[in-house]
């Protein structure tokens, strides 16, 4: 009996390690943002279709806002678009789009055809701002609180359930003015 003890223990140990590895593998949708609790990276980017107008993070200070990273080349962005439109209709929080490494005309056409859920869309043509946000795949959606700190990041298509659970719950009671 005792000769099975050590192999058995080794087996259980290995099984345990592998189980932890499988369960906690860096699932793309659960990888935490390194920015959580930290100040939003500074940016000043042209507004899509804004004719030279710019949007900076400083303009958004003082109230919570949501940043959605998207591109017309991104399939999951099309998938989440209806959810974003529904969220925009509820008018709970400014929804800022970050058009990542995209073509302006294609982006404008996309919003004309599918509807525009965004309060403002900032254009990040060369992807520098996305890198500063630690973006590794579109779509990604960030919740930024009134003091300009990143409180949550969702990777992958937005859904009404995720919105309710992770974003609405972080809004101050009574919504934003």
């Amino acid at each position, binding site marked *: 009996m005792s000769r099975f003890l*050590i192999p058995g223990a080794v087996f259980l140990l290995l099984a345990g*390690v592998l189980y932890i590895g499988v369960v906690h593998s860096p699932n793309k949708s659960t990888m935490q943002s390194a920015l959580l609790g930290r100040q939003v990276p500074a940016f000043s980017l042209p507004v899509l279709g804004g004719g030279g107008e710019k949007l900076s993070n400083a303009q958004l200070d003082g109230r919570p806002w949501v940043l959605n990273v998207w591109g017309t080349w991104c399939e999951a962005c099309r998938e989440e678009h209806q959810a974003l439109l529904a969220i925009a209709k509820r008018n709970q929080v400014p929804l800022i789009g970050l058009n990542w*490494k995209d073509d302006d005309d294609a982006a404008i056409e996309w919003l004309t055809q599918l509807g525009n859920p965004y309060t403002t869309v900032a254009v990040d043509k*060369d992807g520098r701002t996305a890198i500063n946000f630690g973006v590794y*795949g579109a779509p990604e959606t960030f919740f930024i609180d009134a003091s300009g700190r990143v409180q949550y990041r969702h990777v992958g298509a937005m859904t009404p359930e995720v919105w309710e659970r992770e974003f609405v719950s972080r809004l101050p009671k009574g919504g934003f003015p």
Partner: protein
Amino acid sequence: MRPQRRLPVVILVAAALLGAGAGALAIDLDAMPTSELQERYDALIHELRCMQCQNQSIADSPVGLAADLRRDVREQMIAGKNDNEIRDSMVARYGNVILFRPPFQRSTAWVWLAPFVLLLVGVFAGIRVVRQRSALVASDDSVIDADETPR
């Protein structure tokens, strides 16, 4: 010269051009201004994980994000940042997971210690097995069967 006799020459020229093309592609588009910087750059981009493909470094990955991260490394290096400062800036944005060699911290300690723990377990198991076997031989006083008696 008749056309069909030209054919091998055409093929040779085409092959040579293709070869030249491949050579041109091999030139790093991210070339650094000095060879010293180039050396540091080449080493550093092999240490950083492509966040989109996870098991490739940003040096090996063809995706756009990897190219953007290489540009970021290049710009910081030219701006005079040292390797540690660049690594820190990457970790600040993407977390430890971007480093193929994670720092030794409380949360990553098991990654570094597990191999030594497993090695120790193996050594102890080995010692036990060897001891048990030698104990078996020493204590074996059973009578050898007539059939098994060596000739």
